[in-house]
């Protein structure tokens, strides 16, 4: 038996019936990590003993005839900005090197309750600030298919781990595209849920009004399965929604006949890689073939979305990261006064990109500038949200467009050009500004084999609808396979 490459659904069912031994699945997965991670650097930490113990508990649970759990026996990777009790949680930052949280994130608890087996913590851009995983304090993640390329970011470790079979599923977090972008570049599925659908309790905050945790999987069905485990009300997060959670797999096979989809015009023009455009148009065509109506749709304020996003995200980041001062936990620079301790710890503990965003964020909030920057961005945010409300009010069920303007880029290609790097997120940030769910699904590959994703964006809490559309794309376009070609 080689469970590498199996779907989560298959592992879950096999484990529940006793046909699959979860310990064997985990052993094989850990072996895979051992052999492949040194090259890819997707994992910052693997907890072999913990994973094996968890697998034994699943065995026991099956023996006792306990509830199956949505993730029974499934090896899961967790992005390292989500707290795991007693095991390292660095958020990709030297500031938190060696930090072990005393409590677990809500999503970590949920994964464990549902029988999932956490195999390790994945690499990311420091505090989620980046689109290429080159801003990790612990070295970049490499694309499984081409080690000279980036898998995208900031959930690049999670995306690479899933794409490469080092985990069956992974959590990511998405503030401006950090789940969808690496999913698109690694040829897998990544869903950013509606803001408030998944609890942020235990998620190391980047920009609180936009951060959202979501699943990365090789297939839409598995992403839906994982959403069943992650979604739901958590009283420890005041922004968490109390809406009931449906079974996100229920409507996946219903097809798209009769759905009205808007092709986001503004994202199909200038600056879009021809291969990506071909993939997106191909996906749109496939949906039309299956009975959906695809119409052009304009969101006029999209042009300002990236600017508004960065101003807002940096402002919130400057505030959220103020707590890293060397006083209570994390990196502490030696110093002889309280002020020097704070300045030294922050000066040395944070990486360049984080410092850039913290400084810019403090600036846009400062007296005399907040009106021109922070508050103006807040107004643009409202306009972007209204664009979407208007589009959905005209009877559109979902919107489609590219996830990323291009396919995986080379390491170092943009790392020194922050403005160009920020534009990686140009198509993804709108969903975060508006709090809407969006999923990236593989839409095809070019001659060089590098994948491109199509983004499907829905109304509030319409995760089921966009996953259903994603499922139709996946069926038509072939979906994800393991990137290394071994299976």
């Amino acid at each position, binding site marked *: 038996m080689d469970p590498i490459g199996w779907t989560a659904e298959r592992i879950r069912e096999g484990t529940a019936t006793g046909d699959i031994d979860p310990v064997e699945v985990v052993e094989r997965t850990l072996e895979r990590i051992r052999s492949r991670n040194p090259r890819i650097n997707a994992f910052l930490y693997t907890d072999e003993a913990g994973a094996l113990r968890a697998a034994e508990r699943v065995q026991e649970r099956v023996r006792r005839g306990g509830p199956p759990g949505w993730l029974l026996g499934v090896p899961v990777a967790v992005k390292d900005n989500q707290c795991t009790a007693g095991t390292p949680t660095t958020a990709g930052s030297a500031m938190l090197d060696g930090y072990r949280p005393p*409590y677990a994130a809500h999503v970590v608890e949920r994964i464990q309750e549902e029988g999932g087996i956490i195999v390790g913590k994945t690499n990311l851009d420091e505090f989620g600030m980046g689109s290429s995983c080159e801003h990790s304090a612990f070295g970049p993640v490499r694309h499984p298919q081409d080690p000279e390329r980036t898998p995208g970011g900031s959930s690049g470790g999670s995306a690479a781990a899933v794409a490469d079979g080092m985990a069956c599923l992974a959590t990511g977090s998405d503030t401006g595209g950090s789940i969808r972008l690496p999913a698109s570049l690694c040829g897998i599925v990544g869903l950013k849920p509606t803001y408030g659908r998944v609890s942020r309790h235990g998620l190391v905050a980047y920009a609180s009004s936009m951060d959202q945790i979501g699943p990365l999987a090789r297939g839409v069905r598995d992403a839906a399965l994982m959403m069943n485990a992650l979604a739901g009300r958590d009283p420890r997060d005041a922004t968490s929604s109390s809406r009931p959670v449906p079974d996100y797999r229920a409507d996946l096979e219903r097809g798209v006949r009769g759905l009205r989809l808007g092709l986001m015009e503004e994202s199909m023009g200038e600056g879009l890689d021809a291969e990506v455009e071909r993939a997106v148009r191909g996906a749109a065509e496939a949906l039309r073939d299956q009975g959906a109506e695809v119409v052009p749709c304009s969101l006029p304020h999209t042009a300002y979305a990236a600017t508004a996003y960065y101003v807002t995200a940096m402002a919130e980041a400057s505030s959220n990261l103020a707590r890293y001062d060397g006083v209570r936990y994390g990196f502490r620079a030696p110093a002889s006064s309280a002020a020097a301790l704070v300045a030294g710890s922050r000066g040395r503990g944070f990486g360049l990109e984080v410092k850039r965003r913290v400084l810019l964020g403090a600036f846009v909030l400062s007296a005399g500038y907040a009106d021109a920057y922070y508050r103006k961005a807040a107004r643009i945010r409202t306009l972007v949200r209204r664009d979407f409300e208007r589009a959905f009010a005209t009877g559109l069920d979902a919107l489609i467009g590219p996830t990323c303007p291009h396919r995986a880029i080379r390491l170092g290609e943009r790392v020194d050009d922050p403005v160009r790097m920020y534009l990686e997120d140009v198509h993804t940030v709108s969903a975060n500004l508006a709090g809407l769910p969006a999923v990236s699904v593989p839409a095809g590959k070019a001659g060089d084999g590098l994948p491109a994703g199509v983004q499907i964006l829905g109304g509030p809490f319409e995760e089921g609808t966009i996953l259903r559309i994603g499922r139709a794309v996946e069926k038509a376009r072939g979906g994800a396979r393991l990137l290394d070609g071994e299976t």
Partner: protein
Amino acid sequence: MSTTYEMVIGVEVHARLATRSKMFCGCANRFGAAPGTLACPVCAGLPGSLPVPNRRAFELGLRVCLALSCRIGRSTRFDRKHYFYPDLPKNYQITQYDEPLGVDGRMEVDLPKEGILPVRIRRVHLEEDAGKNLHGREGGSSLVDLNRAGAPLVEIVTEPDFRSPSQAKAFLQALQRLLRTLEVSNANMEEGSLRGEPNLSLRPAGADALGVKTEIKNLNSFGAVERALRREAERQRGILEAGGRVRPETLLWDEGRGETRPMRSKEEAHDYRYFPEPDIPPVRLDAGWVEEIRGGLAELPLARRRRFERAYGLDAAEAGILTEERALADAFEACVRAYPRPADVSRFYQKEVRRLLNEKGWRMQDFPVPPEQIARLLRLVEEGGLNPAQARACLAEAASTGRPVDAVRKEKGLEQLRDASRLSRVVAGVVAEHPRAVEHVRRGKEAKAVGHLMGVIMRETGGRADPKAARSLLVRALREAAGEGRGNAGVP
């Protein structure tokens, strides 16, 4: 030529809300626990921790807003206020900036000599407290105690409506009574659960424009508020008279030296970079909820004092003392319901009960003798069942044992003498010893004679004689004695 200056004073007050748990987490909101024992990931600002607002804190905050007649919006929200300080775990404080809980309120302060001073309340809002730095321990290092971090505070800001330090002090005292009456806060300045930070500027008398103000912190008593303001007014006057300019700054009061000193060594313009707290959605202040809180609002001290004067015919001073503490006012009213002689009840509470409280070091809310028992005691005194000294002894005994007045009285042998034969003997003896009283009865002055001899009987029985029974026996005995005499005179 010297200028006369007018003081312009405003006050900013922080009161710690008397909730069970903290403002944004489930940790206990308590004073005096061992350092670091009341703290969780939220208090420590650990990565990934999130604030969840305490509903009870809103209720208490709304009580304050309603009692101060503030305008209350339909929704309110929190903001982040940023500054780096080791006792502030997140390096920002969750507070309310441009959508506070209440605005534009007012309060009337009754000044002993000047009468009623109307004070405008600028705003009332909720926020979290910081931790506490502990210096000079463990080889010169400093520690941070997070027990207080995240404790719920209500901040109340007045307009600059005070013209003297004593007015500001009287306001703080009145506000303390109000907060305690509303059961919103212990409002104890020495414990730090009530902190008053006044600001002061001077201007030439009669001028409209405001001068440059300074703010004073570290005031641990009402007296300190008054002293610090006096001292600061002198300091500013000195500067102005020398032709100088007052610097806008925050000063710390040094109670030992009786002077203020600048809090920061150099002038730092703080930019707090406020923005809406994204972790907490705006809180809707549902009208039904607000009305429910209004309905449950306790009567405010000043209103109650006026009602006491009106309804019970007490004078202002007496009513003032009774309403200073809610527990006392409540007890007084309950007692009057059972024994409707307000003047007697008031006197008894202010004299006997107060004496006992002072003796034992109790607070009124801990006083163990219920008002109904006080009423019983007063009735016994009225009926002559107890003399004042006995009543006092009974009260002390009831207070320390927690037993009812009648039981105490019995134990002490102070219960009524009702036994007819024993009473008759006492009465007969008294009548025999007072022939002049019998003479009075004969001359139609029975009431006078009865009144006089009842006093004698009570004295002789140590106040124990059942007044009703004794009186009827006495009347009968007197009439008989008087009749016998008349018989001798040959009346038909």
